[in-house]
């Protein structure tokens, strides 16, 4: 793709090939919520290359250290880079061998710093991240965007999830959801993504993190319903319309 820069570009006449200008392979929304025992997170397994569905088995949620789970939407290569940074971070932490380990709050703070600093250099990591975890009984769920906006909440979503999942979560989330109820609520959100987000695929994973550890379940598909009578013969009233 040729670099297209407007003539009056604020960035001057630099055509720096090392800057991130647009994402290439992207993942769509991630949605997560706090439940009774910890955090539940859901994401589909699609990696789109522009408007093509190029990769259908991308794991967009990964465990970090002992206490955290990271989910990402946006550029997949930047997500892999972030995983390498975090690997290094966890490694150094382990090398201290002091009986203490980085919790989700610390990892979230580290990620915020990384994202914000990159954006200040006009070379962002093109991701929206969701960081969840449990340490010493305290549940933590936070999010960081590609420009460094970060906050902590009981339920978060990235990308399209902000528009489609947030309203549902705001209405139906409550404290101390059971595991089954939490999964049902996440599946409700994933259903809406599947119907209404063009880059969604019907192959999703649910990940759970509790005090005991991380479990990323096997991928599965959702059942969709297409039997509305209005879909059967939409032009029956007006021939030539649709």
């Amino acid at each position: 793709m040729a670099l297209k820069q407007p003539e009056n570009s604020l960035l001057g006449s630099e055509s720096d090939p090392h800057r991130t200008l647009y994402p290439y392979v992207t993942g769509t929304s991630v949605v997560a919520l706090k439940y009774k025992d910890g955090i539940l997170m859901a994401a589909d397994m699609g990696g789109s290359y522009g408007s093509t569905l190029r990769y259908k088995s991308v794991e967009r949620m990964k465990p970090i250290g002992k206490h955290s789970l990271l989910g990402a939407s946006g550029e997949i290569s930047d997500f892999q880079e972030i995983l390498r940074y975090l690997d290094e971070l966890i490694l150094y932490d382990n090398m201290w061998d002091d009986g203490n380990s980085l919790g989700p709050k610390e990892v979230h703070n580290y990620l915020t710093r990384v994202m914000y600093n990159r954006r200040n250099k006009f070379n962002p990591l093109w991701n929206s991240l969701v960081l969840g975890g449990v340490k010493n009984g305290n549940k933590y769920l936070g999010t960081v965007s590609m420009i460094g906006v970060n906050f902590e909440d009981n339920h978060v979503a990235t990308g399209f999830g902000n528009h489609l999942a947030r309203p549902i979560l705001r209405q139906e989330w409550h404290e101390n959801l059971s595991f089954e109820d939490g999964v049902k609520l996440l599946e409700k959100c994933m259903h809406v993504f599947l119907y209404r987000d063009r880059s969604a695929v019907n192959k999703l994973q649910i990940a759970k993190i509790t005090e005991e550890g991380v479990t990323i379940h096997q991928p599965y598909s959702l059942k969709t319903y297409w039997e509305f009578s209005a879909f059967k013969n939409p032009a029956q009233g007006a021939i030539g319309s649709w």
Partner: protein
Amino acid sequence: MSKSVIETPPKGGFSFDLCKRNEMLSKKGVNPPSFRKTGTTIVGLIFQDGVILGADTRATEGPIVCDKNCEKIHYMAPNIYCCGAGTAADTEAVTDMVSSQLQLHRYHTGRESRVVTALTLLKRHLFNYQGYVSAALVLGGVDVTGPHLHTIYPHGSTDTLPFATMGSGSLAAMAVFESKYREGLTRNEGIELVTEAICSGIFNDLGSGSNVDICVITKGGKEYLRNHLQPNPRTYTSSKGYSFPKKTEVLLTKIIPLKEKVEIIEGGDAMEE
């Protein structure tokens, strides 16, 4: 449809003469001011006996709420109503115009208007103006062929759907519909679902707010529930509202009724039916 003689510019319709110049300016970084979107949540759904339309009541001018309680559900025919999102002037004008055309058509044919008639009139008009008439509509009604629900986009394309949402709050409302809609809803279930969808738009979208308007259309007739739900009431710091400090004593109360000047002309020109 007969067209009255309107004064049109020599080429007819919009003049696209400045497009090349605007494009050249855009390339240099000088962009034209964008149109003000009015921000809305409008929905419609088909239930057992007919159609239910719903809308919020906030009209915005950029970041300011200019009308806290406007009406977005427009009358088209006794059995057809239309919700409008986009530029308020465009939705009002286009629904008014098609409503009049439908009335004339009813006189001409002697029959109840059909929803597809309204649909075709609207889509032809909007397509003619190539999307410049910024009206996104949810049209619903019940006619001899049954209940119908359509969405019409500013460029003139239409969809026939069992449930539909439009406007800036459409994603929030659609999330509710996609998770809770099913066929064969009863009237009360339908109203509850529509209210929930509009509330989802009101509370999760900044362009929508204030109250919920509902319109239920069935074969028997229509029910326009203006301000069916008011989830954002005006609150006062004091429960008694504003009261003058005690020091202002009422010394004298004098009420002077103004004389009514209404002249009724008997036997004037009756309008020919």
